[in-house]
């Protein structure tokens, strides 16, 4: 599969409608025959990033596998909102077992396919950040380490949304959740905690690891396709803003996903066999405030008196990412763009 990077130079938004692109460059979502793996009628909140991310990711995986796909799903919002009594939104074979075992269930599916010689059918497993970095982490690490033929997709909304917004190991510092309330001298989630799962996945040396967001849907689809072109354990970590848990406007979901990248808080990259092979440069760097201020979960950092000290600490996190991944284009690189 070849891939031409798509560059957009429209006013302000950095986004372009599919109409402006060549057929071959359009997203899977613009294709009439797309599979609608997660079809309409589900019960996600307005502006749910997870619903959007899952729809794009699975439809791209369906295209890549010619519709020969089965999915394992952990407990969480995606599972609950997609299978409301007495309906399902899934148009692919889909199994929900438990909260903490999706990677292992997927391994079982892959093992059965292998025994039966069914090389045509592929397996994806999906979970929220809690199902991935916390309760499912043991099973996930095992799946990675054995290099089982599974694509695991984490939809990271940075907390346990399904149970009412409690902290997970992916909750960023200072964010308010129901178990890290904005009270006391250190309001919100603590600094110096949390798990960087994409980098942990890379450390397993698995064939493919990538991060993506719902702001860059071409990029998300492309990474899914790349993942499906490889056998073995693959990991895709998608940032999916959650209007309910982030206390943000439903209409800001895409904007927030973009600002997360452009501030440096959420680096976009790909890694193969333990090495980072590609990094998406920040096109126009923004201070973390631009991202934080749109979210009620950081409300306590702003206003009077606010906590500028904590905002500075968050900026340091972004700066560290920018340095670690080389996120800001050097002068020479910028010219090419």
């Amino acid at each position, binding site marked *: 599969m070849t891939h031409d990077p798509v560059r957009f130079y429209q006013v302000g938004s950095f986004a372009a409608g599919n109409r402006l692109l060549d057929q071959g460059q359009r997203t899977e979502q613009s294709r009439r025959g797309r599979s609608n793996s997660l079809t309409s009628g589900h019960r996600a909140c307005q502006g749910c990033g997870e619903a959007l991310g899952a729809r794009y990711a699975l439809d791209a995986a369906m295209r890549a596998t010619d519709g020969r796909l089965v999915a394992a799903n952990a407990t969480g919002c995606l599972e609950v909102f997609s299978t409301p009594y007495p309906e399902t939104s899934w148009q692919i074979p889909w199994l929900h077992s*438990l909260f903490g075992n999706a990677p292992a269930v997927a391994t079982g599916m892959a093992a059965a396919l292998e025994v039966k010689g069914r090389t045509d059918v592929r397996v994806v497993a999906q979970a929220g950040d809690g199902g991935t970095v916390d309760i499912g982490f043991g099973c996930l690490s095992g799946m990675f380490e054995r290099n089982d033929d599974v694509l695991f997709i984490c939809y990271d909304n940075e907390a346990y949304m399904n149970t009412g917004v*409690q902290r997970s190991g992916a909750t960023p510092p200072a964010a308010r959740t129901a178990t890290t309330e904005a009270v006391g001298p250190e309001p919100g989630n603590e600094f110096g905690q949390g798990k960087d799962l994409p980098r942990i996945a890379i450390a397993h040396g698995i064939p493919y690891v990538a991060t993506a967001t719902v702001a860059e849907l071409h990029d998300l689809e492309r990474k899914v396709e790349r993942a499906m072109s490889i056998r073995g354990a693959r990991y895709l970590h998608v940032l999916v803003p959650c209007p309910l848990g982030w206390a943000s406007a439903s209409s800001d979901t895409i904007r927030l996903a973009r600002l997360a990248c452009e501030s440096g808080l959420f680096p976009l990259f790909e890694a193969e066999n333990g090495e980072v092979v590609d990094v998406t440069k920040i096109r126009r760097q923004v201070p973390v405030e631009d991202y934080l201020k749109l979210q009620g979960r950081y409300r306590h950092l702003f206003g009077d008196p606010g906590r500028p000290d904590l905002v500075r600490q968050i900026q340091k996190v972004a700066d560290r990412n920018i340095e670690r991944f080389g996120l800001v284009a050097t002068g020479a690189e910028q010219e090419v763009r």
Partner: protein
Amino acid sequence: MLRQIEGSRAVAEAVGLCRPEVVCAYPISPQTHIIEAVGVLVKSGRLHPCKFVNVESEFAAMSVSIGASAMGARAYTATASQGLLFMTEAVYNAAGLGLPIVMTVANRAIGAPINIWNDHSDAMSVRDAGWVQLFAETNQDAVDLHIQAFRLAEELSLPVMVCMDGFVLTHAFERVELPDQEAVDAFLPPFEPRQVLDPDNPVSIGAMVGPEAFTEVRYLAHARQLQALARIPELAEEFEAGFGRAAGGLVTTYRTEGAETVVVALGSVLGTLKDAADSMWDAGVPVGVVGVTTFRPFPAAAVARAVSAARRVVVVEKAFSIGAHGILAGDVTLALSGLDIRVDAVVAGLGGRPISEASCRGLLEEAAAGSLPALSFLDLDTHLVARELERMVAQRRSGPVAENLLRDIGSVSGSGLAVARPGSQKGAR
């Protein structure tokens, strides 16, 4: 102080009054409001000194509690349903080690099919683990039982589980008398561990025990539960003296005198049953109600005493041993062996199925008439079951049962609209 307060908040306040030193929990509905409120107590500094640990799973939550308790800290956690099962290995371990951890279980059904609503399958699944299990009838009970739980746990060096019905109690907003700190401090002295990891006096905890002593270790666990059986009523009396209201104890009785029929149950359904019993008395049919507050250790003698004058006992329970019988009913039957009393089991309220007053009344009428079978299921939709059995006969690949039933209900009610709320299953017919 008398307050109109959510059950979960009230329990969190009560736990705070007991001054736990390490609180560790993993969120799961319907327990979340409890731990969120305890979290705020800690983070705001109101509960101090106390460390609130957000962990990555229930297995870790119980394991952190084990470590903290063995270090001599008063440890508290809470969970429900899948969470209790996820920590099962550590639940047995805490009891085996004899660590006085207190845990709230916000009772909820177990999946699959996933279901967040109330029944007692979760608590029942660990009834043999060696924990004391107390069941709250009201939110006042839940508050009072937690205070007694810490005292009992630490006196006997045994873990104690306080069970309260998920949503029905945890999310109910009602009046609760919250005791003041002095009264709780007077009732609950600081934790004096029986065993502790201490560099000045090193002990090994958790050694391998082979066939030569394992039976004795287990027997002692049983003996300690029997001690609890003796101690629980004493603590209840002391509690009543200190706080001015009755709570805890082994069993409660309501209008059993002169009742030929007695209904036995656990938890919040007792309230609805008492109302139904009153209406039976009004109709000239005397029916008594016995609540089992302490389910483990099982108070066989107290239960037998409470129902000894009855001719029929009906056990209403929110769980059962699939392929066998009612669980509480089994214990009650054993307690009454030798007496000429018939015991029937009625399974009710599974996965949040509402137990309506009318259904309770109907059940008591049947019980009083002696027409209940040994095991029955309240408000079971037999037609729905029959249709699925037919599908299974007609077709090998009949598909997943849960989904088939849902589709069936959806088409029967014809609404095409899902109102996922407890009661809708039954309300549809």
